[in-house]
């Protein structure tokens, strides 16, 4: 019942120009001020696949926070649609588009894309993700994405980053490497080191 709209779209789209026109229509509907249109639109984004990645990413950078949110959720629909078993070709196409976003998009888009690639990314995504490990704003998201990324290449990338990372980031990288079964000398976990003081004082006993 809930996915009947998607099924109709699947039939309607699927080839060349029709897809492009379909994506333009999708974007227009997501931008609609009528929530009954925009709300349905982003939820139906999954089957649009790779063609929808860049247009949706562009909307994610909009100042209108509700529009940006709908676009982000629409893009996640794409990622989860192509992540299904048996959709390797669609997944590869979406991955390719996502990777291109890592080098040129605003930080809020790159952050989300890193997480998206952690869900579906192959070895192709490793080096572009690793490049974010030197970006102070995005490095922890990239570290998380690579920690989840199942390939040996992700471990290699984390090791390489560890060798050159600033001291304050080495602890986090060491934790990721240990999670992946690697032995790391030094940089013990700081997870149990308290750091936040309260200004609340105990009430005076009467």
């Amino acid at each position: 019942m809930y996915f009947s709209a998607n099924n109709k779209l699947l039939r309607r789209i699927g080839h060349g120009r029709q897809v492009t026109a379909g994506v333009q229509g999708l974007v227009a509907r997501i931008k609609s001020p009528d929530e009954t249109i925009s709300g349905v639109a982003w939820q139906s984004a999954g089957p649009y696949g790779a063609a929808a990645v860049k247009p949706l990413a562009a909307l994610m950078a909009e100042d209108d926070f509700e529009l940006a949110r709908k676009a982000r959720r629409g893009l996640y629909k794409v990622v989860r649609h192509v992540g299904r078993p048996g959709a390797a070709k669609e997944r590869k196409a979406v991955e390719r588009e996502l990777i291109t976003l890592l080098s040129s998009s605003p930080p809020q888009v790159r952050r989300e894309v890193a997480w998206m690639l952690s869900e579906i990314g192959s070895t192709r995504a490793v080096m572009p993700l690793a490049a974010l490990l030197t970006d102070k704003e995005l490095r922890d998201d990239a570290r998380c994405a690579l920690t989840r990324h199942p390939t040996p290449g992700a471990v290699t990338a984390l090791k390489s980053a560890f060798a050159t990372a600033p001291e304050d980031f080495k602890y986090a990288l060491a934790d990721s490497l240990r999670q992946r079964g690697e032995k790391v000398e030094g940089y013990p976990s700081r997870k149990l080191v308290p750091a936040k003081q309260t200004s609340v004082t105990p009430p005076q006993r009467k």
Partner: protein
Amino acid sequence: MMSHTHRITRRSFLKSSVLVAGALNLAPGGVLGRNSQAGANDRLVVAHVGVGGMGMTHLTNMLRFQKEGKVRVAAICDADDNRLEAAVENASIGGASAIPYRDYRYVLERKDIDAVVIATPDHWHAVQTVHACETGKHVYVEKPASVTIREGQAMVAAARTHKVAVQVGAQARTAKGAWQTCRAIRNGIVGKVGRVSCWHYANPTDEKPVPDSPPPEGLDWDLWLGPLPWRPHNQRCQPGNFRWLMESGGGQIRDRGAHQFSTVLWCMNADHQTSFTVEAKGRAPAKGLWDCPIDMDVIYQFKNPNWTLEWGQPGIKVGQTEFGNVFWGDNGHLILEWEGGYRPANPEAVNFQLPPGGQEVYRTDEYEDFNMNHKADWFKSIRDGHLRPAVDIEIGHRTATLCNLGNLSYILGRKLVWNGEKQEVAGDEQANRLLSRPQRYPYVL
């Protein structure tokens, strides 16, 4: 009317209490419960981490235990100074000199504290529980146990490795209503049960979305986020609204579902049935920050024995109250309103007489108030040294697995085949990657 089993249980409890109290008076130092060793002080020294809605109920309970001489409330912690101040004030009025903390890790550093009660937002449960176990403290953690499967596994492992008792706050398994229903179902009141359906009202929608904004004064936003990926503060995230975000709350199915599923598994004697298929469909909100589905239908299929569990949001309301469960058997059906704690059992279950040779079901029976009783059960597991309370973390993890995989199936828009032995989804790489969520440093397992 109290059952024979209850009388035995209470007598046994009183007897063991007297023996333990005597032993405590002889013991030289240390504290009750640390790694199952009785100490000189017969009061468990307790800290509260998270004192919002349910956290305050826990604190109120614990102050009553303190008056009864069973515990001492020594510390209170919250990432929000406003809540913290109110809680320490309440504790003071209740007779406790609790030290306030913002950062729970100060609490864990204290050697004098035996146990922690964790009632933070769901995304914190696993990390704080694992850390508490690692520092040798017993844990009472709110349900749902976890927000990912891997977190749940880590919680079980930590409890076993460090030999502490971890009770999950799904209190129905120590509540009279659920117990009466459980023994009636297990002993065939409706015959063989092939289907259990749950109904529950919908998730709310964020009708008034607002832009991100600085956190309110007193709230440590970094600490509130903890393991979650960094993002700016939004008023619609907290305090209680974390429930309606998939990453921090997971909606009704992970909130009340954790109660209802725990009760259902108990009644069905199905804690061992860890493999199943799950298929979820839902209606996402059209706008706003909250992303949990408004309506949701989830079907779980279990094998050997075969039965179906249905989560209906709203589902088909069979009973009288806002949410509940129906056990559909060969010979009729039995309704359990809510989860069997805050509402009494159906009269048929209350009046059910155990047949000759029937299977009795144990529960701790120290307090009429099931919130108190659930904590008493936790204390008992520590005192007796078996460290397996009624909703031991392994049961809590299995229950949360149902909730989390229901949400995962909804997110992915496809049916999942869950292999409980291997703890993985069959043939779905993306689903398996989403069984964990890497955590923001240093708020890691």
